[in-house]
């Protein structure tokens, strides 16, 4: 995998840092020199997974490009909590235009860099799942199809959290949101398929597609580094739990991301030119319940009567992912 294989160093690569590693083997986040691309003082909620994921990814990109990045950011939580006048938390060149156009703005940045002979300056476009899977999907697909030299990063928190936790096409089935209330015959979001953008990205046969979670920093850093070593349209989809929208404890952000991966519900893999090349294996498999239970958005599944249909549906999805992406070692 994009994971760095290291010898046994007490914690391997699971922790952020490891004093026993050679300096060149250390994660970007473990260094005092990291950019802190998204700096302190931003107004994200306590335990925000997106703030964490964005810093992980941007700092890694800064390290991978020797500080030569520019960012186009879609409207959404990440934009709102980071740049309320008169303060910005960004320490890197950053532009916000609209909700649905980050990929296109990124394409414009890339075109400008190319025409100006500044091809060392690399372009990242980023946004939440709403701006990626829904409103910005057309421009994203266009950017992929043209193979623009842009890395698009989706911070997937499975809903429109900034506007008050509404359902997006990336919302998990059965989840309660403001627009999929946990009432009626089939409480919560419908048991449909939703939209898994990484697979759609792969269908564009772009050079690189990867998924990751904030529970695995090393994996994010490796994937961002790989992405920055390539040219053309690249896509990284990072699962970032949202304490507000998921109804989870702020300290559970990383744990929930881990459970999503360890249950198989969120497959972590990478693909080149439209084909899956590797996946991050499940280390300690857990049933999806372990992921669902700590979240209030799924509380209705575990009421007086367990919603076996919904739990089973999600478990089946996890198992499909496990098969499809070979998430368990033989």
């Amino acid at each position, binding site marked *: 995998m994009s994971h760095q294989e290291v010898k046994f160093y007490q914690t391997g690569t699971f922790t952020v840092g490891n004093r026993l590693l050679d300096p060149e083997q250390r994660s970007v986040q473990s260094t005092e020199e990291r950019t802190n691309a998204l700096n302190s003082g931003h107004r994200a909620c306590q335990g925000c997974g997106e703030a964490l994921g964005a810093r992980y990814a941007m700092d890694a990109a800064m390290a991978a490009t020797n500080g030569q990045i520019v960012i186009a950011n879609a409207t959404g939580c990440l934009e709102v909590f980071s740049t*309320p*006048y*008169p303060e910005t938390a960004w320490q890197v060149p950053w*532009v*916000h235009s609209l909700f649905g*156009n980050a990929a296109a703005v990124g394409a*414009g940045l890339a075109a*400008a860099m190319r025409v100006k002979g500044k091809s060392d300056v690399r372009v990242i476009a980023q946004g939440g799942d709403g701006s990626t899977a829904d409103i910005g999907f057309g*421009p994203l697909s266009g950017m992929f199809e043209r193979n623009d030299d842009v890395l698009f990063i989706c911070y997937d928190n499975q809903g429109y959290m900034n506007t008050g936790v509404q359902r997006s096409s990336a919302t998990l089935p059965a989840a309660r949101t403001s627009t999929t209330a946990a009432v009626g015959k089939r409480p919560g979001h419908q048991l449909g398929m939703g939209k898994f953008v990484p697979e759609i990205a792969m269908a564009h046969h772009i050079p690189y597609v990867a998924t990751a979670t904030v529970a695995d920093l090393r994996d994010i850093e490796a994937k961002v580094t790989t992405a920055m070593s390539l040219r053309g349209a690249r896509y990284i989809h990072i699962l970032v739990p949202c304490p507000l929208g998921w109804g989870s404890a702020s300290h559970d952000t990383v744990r929930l991301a881990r459970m999503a991966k360890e249950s198989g519900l969120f497959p972590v893999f990478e693909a080149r030119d439209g084909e899956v090349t590797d996946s991050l294996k499940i280390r300690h498999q857990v049933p999806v319940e372990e992921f669902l239970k700590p979240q209030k958005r799924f509380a209705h599944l575990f009421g007086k009567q367990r919603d076996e249909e919904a739990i089973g549906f999600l478990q089946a999805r996890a198992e499909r992912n496990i098969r499809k992406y070979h998430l368990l070692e033989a």
Partner: protein
Amino acid sequence: MLKQLEGSRAVAEAVALCRPEVVCAYPITPQTHIVEAVGEMVREGTLSPCEFINVESEFSALSVAIGASAAGARTYTATASQGLLFMAEAVFNASGMGFPIVMTVANRAIGAPINIWNDQGDSMAMRDSGWLQIYATSNQEAVDLHIIAFRLAEEISLPVMVCMDGFVLTHAYERVDIPEQAEVDAYLPPFEPRQILDPAEPVTMGAMVGPEAFTEVRYLAHIKQMQALELLPKLAREFEARFGRDSGCLIQRYRTEDAKTIVVALGSVVGTLQEVIDTLRNEGHAVGVLAIRAFRPFPLAEVHDALMHAERVVVVERAFAIGQGGIVADSIRKALQGRPAPIYTVVAGLGGRPITQASLNAMLHQAMDDALPSVTFLDLQTDVVERALERERSHRRSGPVAEGVLKDLGVKAMQYV
């Protein structure tokens, strides 16, 4: 160099002379020929360096332009009609951010009903988007205004929409003088962006601004746009000095000095009007035409000065604010605030209907007699609308008005099953 060219080709050549670095294209009639020609020049290598990007929508076209401009590239795109509306969100965004993008709007009607022909409903819908809007009356002006527009946009750091009537100008073959590259280079220096996304000097562009500063931001945007009222004439004078043509003033007067009746118009209809005015002058009527080149910012003072001695003003409009009336006329009224002269609104040429000299002539005779209603739809088929209205009155649900009107016109538009 004098050339016999299609308007679109002429504009494309003018744009190319401005050395745009990023051009985004999405097809929509009647703008297509412009970007097709630019694209060809990029492919041929005659326009280089330039990134020509085929995007998947107008929304992305302008968004790509925004990104390119944010990174300091001279950026151009073109659109029309539905396309302009589809990119509307980005239109407002580009001006709010202060990116000096130049965009051609090949004016076309907005649906429904869908209509590919000319009127100015599209750019008029974007009149308050914060962009500067200049309207070309001829293809030569269209050529010249694009060159001026880049200079204007970049000096003031605001985007400029150059509006030219679709088909009437874009598809018309006329003789135009295409300037020499060296002359254009001398007139239009390389783009030096006011703000740029650059790793060497990181900034955050596009912050969220709340009640504590939003008013100030809007106030400053207004002040900034108003600066064009001085800048545009200055650039036009420079242009005239170099190229020998007056193409860029805020307004253009034609035989208005002693005119008792002055017709105000935007775009290609001005040419037709000039011929009508010549006829009327020959008949001894004191009439003139005032062309408004800059609709945003609106040159209130200049318009006032041009019209203050007129006994009446007739505003010929290629767009219409439904439920309200003339859009341009409103601004004229504002310019002539306190003056008793009547101001007539004449809505003409919607959805591509030809504006004939005969109709204009007849209408102006009515106006000179002060027999013109305050709002007139030129060449309106009154019997058709009357019948439709009658049907409305008698049957509460009589189907779409447009359908009814088409039936009355004897056109079988759609087969009901």
